């Protein structure tokens, strides 16, 4: 059913534009290879979307933004490092990167919520080994993963966040 709606929507939009005389006239004046290539490019965008398997269709990826209907409480994860002398300090993972920090945090969340946390563990171990955050000068011996939950209800403030230790990863 969704595919039918997709085809109808894209078909309507494309027909609306591609059948306009100025565009038809311009396309008619092109060499056939150029016309085919440009039209193929136009079709590749919605086709990549409808196939919805970006891992195969990249660069013609699926476009799904704000489509998941989320639970009333939002949950994210924060991290802390425990050093060999037992000192625990917050570990802002995003700050390990200049521009990709937010995406790394997002990836960690996906890995943490996967069926197995093996990949999350491997990535956290890798990042902790490279981290420069341990100001005490002692190496990190463990990573603590904290689950933070905030109810999305009117009047809630960040102070309403509940923070619980989800698990400890021994390095």
């Amino acid at each position: 059913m969704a595919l039918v709606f997709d085809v109808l929507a894209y078909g309507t939009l494309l027909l609306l534009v591609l059948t306009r005389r100025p565009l038809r006239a311009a396309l008619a004046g092109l060499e056939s290879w150029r016309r085919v290539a440009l039209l193929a490019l136009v079709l590749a965008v919605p086709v990549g979307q409808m196939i919805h398997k970006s891992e195969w269709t990249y660069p013609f990826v699926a476009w799904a933004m704000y489509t998941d209907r989320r639970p009333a409480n939002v949950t994210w994860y924060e991290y802390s490092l425990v050093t060999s002398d037992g000192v625990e300090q917050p570990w802002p993972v995003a700050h390990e990167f200049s521009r990709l920090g937010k995406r790394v945090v997002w990836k960690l969340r996906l890995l943490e919520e996967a069926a197995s946390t093996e990949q999350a563990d491997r990535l956290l171990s890798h990042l902790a080994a490279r981290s420069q955050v341990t100001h005490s000068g002692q190496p990190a011996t463990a990573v603590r993963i904290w689950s933070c939950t905030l109810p999305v209800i009117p009047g809630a403030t960040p102070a309403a966040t509940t923070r619980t230790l989800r698990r400890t990863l021994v390095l």
Partner: protein
Amino acid sequence: MLHERATAQSLGILRAAVYTIWLGDLLREPITDLKNLPVWMFEPLGVLKLVPSMAWPVVFSPLFLIALKLVLLGLLVPLVLGRGPYRLLSVTAVCLLIFWQGLTRGMLGVVHREMAILYVTMVLALSPAADAFVWRGRPGTKDAGDRSRADTAKLDVYRAALMIATLVYTLTYAAVGVRRLTAAGPGIFFDGTILRYLVIRSAEPGWWADGAGLQVLTHPWLSWLVQAAFPVVTLAEILAPPVLLDRRFRLAWIVIIAVFHVMSWGMMQIFFLQNILLMPFLLHEWAPAGHDKTRLAEANRASYGADGVEVG
């Protein structure tokens, strides 16, 4: 229709703008970010699956990443200026841009920020976008470039290229809006989903602490505004392609989407900078026939009346 009076100059302006945006992006891109991630995390996407797996440790080495950045810089500068063998440079640049963007997406998942401009760049590689608006060097020196290659016989190509570039740009918005309805149904506009997206994007640790998106919890008017805007923005996304057809609709669309992008930046730390920068070049008619004061315009007027309207 938008771009129906475009000229070589119009397309050349788009070319210079697109490659300048890529240049800015590349200069801001710290290659070191990728080398700090483990290679085992990388899963090649799409066309990158053609690369042998043994090559990836080499690709993610600092030396290769820096070399890739330097090669791209070396391609983008002449493309901005419109100098050199355009087709060779533009096709090579597109291939390398697809490769470069595929590296981070293969590591960290597909994001969409650079995809629209990538599709527009593909259109430019299929078009003679360096026929005009090129840097010719200092006059009287041996560095001076050729005379304009703009050709009135190729007006169809210039116009088709601009129209198609704008169409693929707007299709990326339509794809987002259509998917939202097909995946979640209209109920998504009434269950507070957008508020939860704002909250998690703001609360989750990033470079910004406690983003403005959390304000929706303590300011009911803001919560109401965001929820009311959500279906309006979705409708504008779905109806993006018709911006080619009507000027007033196009202006309204630009306002809605520009405000949406700015609000996304402030409240969700998501900024489609490239899309915003492309707007004035795709959604406005630059150097249309009849208004250009160059020699091309004079040639055009042989085919078009003095008021720029096509004759015959």
